[in-house]
């Protein structure tokens, strides 16, 4: 019981920490665009600088607010038109939703894992196998539905995609790297 509670706390900490990380990532992106603009000619860098510099300033205030001066950010908890104060003021660290519970965190890990697995399956084995196996796996494992129902839904989804995209639209679906597919980067 104690071990589970500790794990829960650790999970919550990870999620809580991820929010300034997101702001930092966006800040880094904006900074990259602004600094990168200087390698281009005058016309090419004009808009990236005009838009990028104010954006960078706003993001900087946000990051500082989230990490050092929380009150600074809460002062901006208002629409630009001044029509509404937000719920974010009542909540810590500028999040507009409640913190995820342990079960929600588990669900988050499941869906993230499933999306990545689905993606890897498409890249390696192609659409046909990936669609059927991913839908089956999700409904069976996450939805805890019977094998029969899971298989029927998976076949139904695959058949719909096959009929519409393959037969009707004559679309050549990606066959997967293991079956001769190529990705050009």
């Amino acid at each position, binding site marked *: 019981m104690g071990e589970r509670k500790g794990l829960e706390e650790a999970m919550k900490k990870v999620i809580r920490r991820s*929010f300034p990380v997101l702001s930092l990532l966006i800040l880094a992106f904006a900074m990259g665009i602004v600094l990168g603009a200087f390698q281009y000619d005058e016309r090419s860098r004009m808009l990236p600088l005009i838009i990028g510099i104010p954006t960078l300033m706003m993001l900087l205030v946000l990051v500082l607010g989230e990490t050092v001066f929380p009150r600074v950010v809460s002062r901006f908890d208002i629409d630009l038109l001044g*029509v*509404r104060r937000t719920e974010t003021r009542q909540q810590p660290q500028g999040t507009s939703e409640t913190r995820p519970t342990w079960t*929600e965190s588990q669900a988050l890990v499941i869906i993230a894992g499933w999306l990545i697995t689905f993606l890897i399956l*498409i890249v390696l084995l192609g659409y046909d196998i990936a669609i059927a196996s991913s839908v089956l796996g999700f409904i069976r494992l996450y*939805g*805890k539905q019977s094998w029969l129902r899971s298989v029927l839904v998976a076949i139904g989804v695959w058949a719909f995609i096959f009929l519409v995209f393959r037969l009707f639209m004559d679309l050549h679906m*990606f066959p997967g790297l293991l079956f001769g*597919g190529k990705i050009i980067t």
Partner: protein
Amino acid sequence: MIETFASAIGHLMGNASYLGALIGGCLLGLFFGLLPGLGGTICLALLLPFTWNLDPIMVMYMFSGVMGSVMVGGSVTSILVNIPGTGGNLATIFDGYPMSRKGEAGRAIGIAGVASCLGGLFGIFWLLLLLPVVIKIIMSFAAPEFCTMILVGLIAIVVAARGNVLKGLSMGGVGMLLAFIGFSDTTGTTRYTGGLLYLWDGIGLIPFILGLFAISEVIMIVRRREAIAELGQDLPQHRWANTVDGFKTVLKHKVCFLRSSAMGTVVGIIPGIGGAVATLLAYTAEMQASKHPELFGTGLPEGVLAPESANNAKDGGALLPTVAFGLPGSAEMVMVLAAFIMHGFAPGPTLLKENIDLVVAPIIGITFSNLLSAFIVLAASMELAKVSTLQPYYVAPIVTVLCFVGVFAVRQEVLDIVLVVLLGFFGYGLRRAGFPIMPLVIGFILGGLFEHSLLQSLMISYGSYSIFLTRPIALGLIILSIILLVLPWVRGRASRRP
């Protein structure tokens, strides 16, 4: 003119192949609108090669069937699962999806269906009414006017910047910065690609929208472990109750409806602006005019009515520059233009004089298709609304599969799927951290267009910004932008005064 229309309608009703082409196109458009990522342009592009030996009027009916219905189909997915079926349905999700979450999906579909249908009809009405005036204005539209028109559209960022103003505006800025990635045909340079060939064309709009809205929503649904409609579904007493409610809403907000459909038509006439701008402008104007703007985005019927009236009204308007000047008003109109050329007709004044049947056919076709598709959606609104009560273990895999396949169908790029997943996680993170997604998307859609038209304007004026002040329409649009920004603030202060 009326005689020409009456004769064309009679011709359509008496010809089974024309009617069949129109109905077939309408059903196909509705279906493509329902599939995430696949809009009318892809549907028309797929149809185009099969039409080379068909009667050109029949082709026009088929194409207009698609164009008239695709927006209606797209509105359904916007409302039910937070996926804008097409760019023109983007603003519908502002209030349509919150209505679904409140268990009012059927009502929202009813409003969207009626607004689309009547919006399409009024679009034709406005087109005929405003044609003599608008055509003169449109003829004088050049880069500075485009630029200032997009500036008005960018005001929508301010409107959509809900919650924390810093977060909203910075997201608008980030959206615009993302739009600068890739090759710029105005400056001839490739920017921020990091040497990746994939980024040469920039970030695709479809993966961008599907990732931020659909995949992030899938993550939210699974995390919540509950159906989209949080409180269950408010099922109406009888099948047509949603339709009746839709009509009542349009009647109640008739000024909003008339304004939005007129805006849709006018924006449609301007070549290259597109449906997303039309709906964003209509939504922004409605919010600015409203006595309770703070309720927009929480599931307000006017928030569905305004964009849905505008996006269908714009189709009629978009036809005009295509047939009259050979300037396609939207991506779909490029396909119509291609069909004209493929059948040996050169759009322009000669076409209007010598082949008026070909010009009238798509106008009538779009109107009929609007009516038919709205009827189908309204008839099925009760069944469609049940989607919002489906359990997450069905919704999540089905939506994900449709997104992954839909995004691949557009460009046949596997990396687009990777991008969709990354943007899905990014969108989820933004939502959790209280960053609004809408300004990001508006900035992304309009950022590239704004840069393009701004640089073109400066090229015309040899680098002088005075071009925006010396041209009356551009100046008028700048003043309009300022009014749109300042008016609610002034009204807010006035209403707070004792």
